[in-house]
């Protein structure tokens, strides 16, 4: 039995796809563990009426309760009886999951092409505005009702994708033709996106009927419709159709990577640009193309944020794009993994409001947890070392050919 376990463990330590999963799960656990310790210890500094008294100190927070609220609260407390699948918390979780799938895919596409797109946030912001404005204006010429829905939603998503794609193409072109580091340019473009959109908003698109900085609402029939009977209805802004579209897009991207010439070339550019150039890939065009695709996905995230969640574009867009980085990193930049990671971060996102109300722990805990997860995912070697300590794997390193070249040796997918 023990032997078999060891064989299994050993295989996990070795095999690369398991490797990824194991590392992601381990990173999650490590982050949760450290977060828990943080919660407990910080409870010693907080003040409360009653707490756990240890060695003369009062600890106010119970990490177990915090995580219970975080993880189960996000699902609507499935263990507490009277649970309904279509509860509001789960709807929020799935709403976030949907948006994070788009954002995660956006980041993953760029990462796989060897580009660190920190700019999904900005692409989402401009794409979302484009969607809202397009739909609001188009609604005046398109008939309403079902026809409107069928015309306006694809139109809005397309507008978001186009503008987001264009906004992603900018750092791509700057990288390809001016050698400007994309990490820095995308971070800057995020700030610029906020400035441009809010200028556009205040000068042209502000909803005259509102004091909030926001555009006019899209007509109700242009919001993503919910599925009758099985769907989440009513008050929550979530549609199973949107989730289905996100999942379909996820599969499409996976197919693109695995099956198409473009996907092959994109992966190759990200893994070993010299080899890609040798194989006939124009590196500059690929840089622009993959950043455009990435930006378009970011724009789609913005479009769904507008059409599914608020029915309009608001200034102060939530940081879905940044969370997309965490999603993609946790997923090892694999499109299918993005789905799972997006769900996890959806849970964190929706659970964070549960923390805010049901516990006294500051909801910023979720940001810390996200950071910790990313940190641990970034250091797979840590878990391999731990793994090796418990399982003796003589040659865990794959036997590889003469290490002369350094480029290929680190095998890192994320070379900056």
């Amino acid at each position, binding site marked *: 039995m023990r032997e078999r376990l060891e064989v299994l463990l050993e295989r996990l330590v070795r095999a690369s796809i398991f490797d990824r999963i194991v590392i992601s799960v381990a990173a999650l656990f490590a982050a949760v563990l450290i977060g828990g310790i943080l919660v407990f210890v910080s409870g010693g500094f907080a003040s409360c009426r009653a707490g756990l008294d240890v060695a003369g100190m009062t600890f106010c927070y119970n990490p177990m309760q915090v995580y219970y609220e975080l993880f189960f609260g996000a699902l609507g407390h499935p263990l507490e009886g009277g649970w309904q699948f279509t509860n509001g918390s789960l709807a929020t979780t799935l709403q976030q999951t949907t948006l994070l799938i788009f954002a995660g895919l956006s980041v993953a596409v760029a990462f796989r092409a060897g580009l660190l797109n920190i700019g999904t946030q900005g692409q989402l912001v401009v794409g979302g505005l484009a969607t809202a404005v397009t739909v609001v204006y188009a609604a005046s010429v398109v008939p309403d009702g079902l026809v409107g829905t069928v015309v306006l939603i694809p139109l809005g998503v397309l507008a978001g994708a186009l503008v987001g794609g264009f906004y992603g193409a900018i750092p791509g072109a700057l990288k390809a033709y001016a050698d400007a580091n994309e990490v820095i340019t995308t971070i800057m473009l995020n700030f610029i996106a906020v400035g441009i959109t809010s200028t556009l908003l205040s000068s042209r698109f502000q909803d005259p009927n509102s004091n909030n900085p926001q555009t006019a609402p899209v007509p109700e029939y242009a919001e993503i419709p919910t599925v009758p009977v099985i769907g989440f209805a009513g008050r929550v802004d979530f549609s199973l159709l949107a989730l289905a579209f996100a999942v379909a897009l996820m599969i499409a991207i996976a197919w693109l990577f695995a099956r198409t*010439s473009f996907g092959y070339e994109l992966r190759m550019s990200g893994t070993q640009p010299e080899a890609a150039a040798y*194989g006939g890939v124009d590196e500059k065009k690929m840089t622009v193309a993959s950043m455009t695709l990435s930006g378009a996905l970011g724009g789609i995230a913005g479009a769904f944020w507008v059409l599914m969640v608020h029915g309009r574009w608001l200034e102060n867009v939530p940081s879905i794009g940044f969370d997309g980085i965490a999603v993609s990193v946790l997923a090892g930049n694999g499109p299918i993994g993005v789905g799972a990671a997006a769900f996890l971060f959806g849970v964190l996102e929706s659970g964070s409001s549960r923390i805010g109300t049901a516990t006294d722990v500051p909801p910023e805990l979720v940001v810390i947890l996200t950071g910790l997860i990313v940190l641990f995912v970034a250091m797979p070697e840590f878990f391999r070392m731990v793994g090796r300590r418990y399982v003796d794997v003589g040659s865990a390193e794959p036997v590889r050919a003469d290490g002369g070249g350094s480029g290929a040796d680190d095998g890192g997918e994320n070379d900056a």
Partner: protein
Amino acid sequence: MSEPGMGTTDGIGPTTEVGEHTADTKSTGSDLAVHLDGITKRFPGVVANDDVDLRVERGTVHALLGENGAGKTTLMNVLYGLYEPEEGRVVVDGEERTFDSPRDAINAGIGMIHQHFMLVDPMTIAENIALGNEPTKWFGMAVDRDRIDRDIRDLCDRYGFDVDPGATVEDVGVGVQQRVEILKALFRGADILILDEPTAVLTPQEVEGLYDVLEELTAQGKTIIFITHKLDEATHAADAITVLRDGKSVGTVRPERTSREDLAERMVGREVLLEAESEPVETGDVVLSTQDVVVEDARGVELVSGIDLDVRAGEIVGIAGVDGNGQAELVEAITGLRTPDEGTIAYEGADITEWSRRRRIESGMAYIPEDRHERGLVMPFDLVENGVLGSQRSARFSDGGRIDWTGVRDHTEELIETYDVRPPNADADAQSFSGGNQQKFIVGREFERDPSLVVATHPTRGVDIGSTEFIHDRLLELRREGVAVLLVSSKLDEVQSLSDRLAVIYEGEFIDVTDPDTITEEELGLRMAGHRPGTDAVDGPNAGESR
């Protein structure tokens, strides 16, 4: 160089196997600078050194001879404190030592000049020489740059070097860089110098210069260990030769008591044919033609300065030259990885100067790249995925958008079988194959593209002798089938024996295009060093003296 027959090496005969020495080394009476005793060093899956013995006498040049991967570098890294051996003793100057780091080795008077220079390119020569050993002033608050300059000047005077300490390393040639490496060791007070394949990047004339330096050094009492896999160098420069094969020592010999053939056999473990054959063949139309091609680097320096070249169908044109003389850039311009700054490139009659790399691939240009790790293969991809590299959009494997992976797999498996890639596992990552097998796979993929032109750069670099023969045979076969071949190699015997015409490149220009069968290796060496034929070839420095 010490004269053969002198010194105390008499006891070491051609067949002497150095056995276990349990006795105190001092009691042997001979003056050993280095004694490595029963060294074993393992890497995951490889025994790099297997119970190796090495005895090096003071004031001599000792060659360490062996094929690629024989374990030479590893053995020296053990001596230099970079690796800790699993078994065995390291005895330096009669004292047993354990080196935990190069620092310990340096303190014990050992200096190592690595195969790849260990220089920091953007720093000056002086900074490089002093690196890690900087004398300081003001209680360690500042590097004492005056003292460094003074010390370097002293060293240069003493050993007859001529370097400018203020020059930046990336601005000077490899010959100078090597001297910087030697100075670096001497600066640290090294008495024992290890040189790892010091001649690989030098012209024959620079090699002669290096021999002079070695002679000067041994004359002043320094001990040299000299790693090489070139037979001639070993016999020429060394006072004693230890041959390694597969990590084991196969004996220490004196050069004057052995022959090249004998050494070659020890190295390889079987008899070797030292030259490949190429019989003349009918040539056809011009397939590739370059005119006045100029390539500049980012700073505007010309790397290729106006090259004219024709390659006909059924012909192998060789380009010989010391690495870094523009051959790489020329090839990149031809294959489309770089746009020439001037000039035109024609292919099967069409002007392809502006064509993309992809278009060139599609029109039948096969290319074995110089660097298989960076270009030829995507290391973390498996062989199936690598099998379609370059053809990912060709009609053969795709419909324009989708790749036909079943077809690719069949093709890859065929390649693996035909080209004897081992292990025959199409699903293994490229990085898990040994260099030779990687190369065979690349060669196969390119050859089976049904090309009309093959551009092969260093097609057998790092490949064992058996596979080398196979690759050469296939190349000749293609030529017979009427394919035009452009062959770039730094192995002189390879270009010489395979080519129908041979061009020598020096600083971006063709010095000469000749019939490879009529030119001698010395002449070739002179051309590679920039001497134009017919001018000063005969009275060039060291001409004719080396053999």
